[in-house]
């Protein structure tokens, strides 16, 4: 009987203390800066082009093969009259978010700091009706950083 009374007292204590949960879509919990959602590409504002040179390093390191990278000659390279020091630049880039396992390896292997994990809520709320919609192309991957909507964290 003592144990039952103690249990009842425990739940009553919780009753008095009140809820610890919160309404999800209304109130978003602040998430830490290291939060890892899906990878996205970063935009070099100085030269106005992506950092990514399409070197395939991330693609080769990806354990789940979720990336497809195609590179091209950079039309804005200095030798062609532009102001960019990148000889090659990314042409097409797809990341299949449905396959990605968010292991952060692509960020670690990147030599140009061109890719980062999305650390905003928008990276987590990616539900769609069609799996094909989760295959992100280059403009989609660049959009968030280009719009300044992300403060990326890359491990030192």
């Amino acid at each position, binding site marked *: 009987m003592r144990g039952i009374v103690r249990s009842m007292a425990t739940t009553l204590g919780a009753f008095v203390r009140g809820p610890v949960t919160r309404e999800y879509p209304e109130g978003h919990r602040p998430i830490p800066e290291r939060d890892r959602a899906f990878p996205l590409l970063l935009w070099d504002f100085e030269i106005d082009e992506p950092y990514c040179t399409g070197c*395939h390093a991330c693609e080769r390191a990806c354990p*789940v*093969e979720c*990336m*497809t990278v*195609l590179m091209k000659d950079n039309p804005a390279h200095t030798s062609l009259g532009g102001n960019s020091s990148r000889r090659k630049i990314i042409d097409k880039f797809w990341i*299949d978010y449905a396959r990605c396992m968010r292991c952060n390896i692509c960020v670690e292997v990147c030599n140009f700091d061109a890719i980062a994990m999305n650390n905003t809520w928008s990276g987590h709320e990616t539900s769609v009706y069609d799996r094909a919609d989760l295959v992100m192309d280059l403009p989609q991957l660049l959009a968030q950083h280009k719009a300044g909507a992300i403060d990326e964290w890359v491990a030192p």
Partner: protein
Amino acid sequence: MSPEEGAPDAAADDAARDYLETTIWAEVDRALSGITARPVTDEEERSVIDLVVRVPPREVVTALRALRDAQGMNFDYLRSLTAVDYEEEGVDVVYHLYSVETRHNVTVKCRLAADRLVVESATSVWRAANWYEREAQEMFGVRFEGHPDPRNLLLPEEMTDVFPLRKSHPLAEIEVLQGEGIAYEEGEL
């Protein structure tokens, strides 16, 4: 046993190896008297922290029983049982044993010829071998004679002609794709 703490020290490592290959082996050898067992000391095959003993497949269950009942260090605990496919060289069946009292490890191995993957079941020694043998059977095609319940465990019940963990079995898609380095053709998207 690994006496080192975290970072392995070279001298300590050698000492530990000596300990494995002389002291423990002496005990194991005594327990396995009458069985053609030999320790694996070859640099290429050796285990880093345990003593590995090779036993011919015909004697393996006898050896396991002898190890379990051995007086000095009774290896009464079957940690794990698995198989390793060496393609045409055959399949290794690997038993990881442990002694709860004396806290010693030993790994028993037997090499089965690729064309005759049959070994006696260890379920009569440890009941723990039951599911491990079923798994090894469906994954590698090793037949464990005398197993009380040789159905498939993890794979679908009727999938008895395919052995997924063999090296000859291709890992669908991902292995193929890794060779090419490109996951999607441009036109597909």
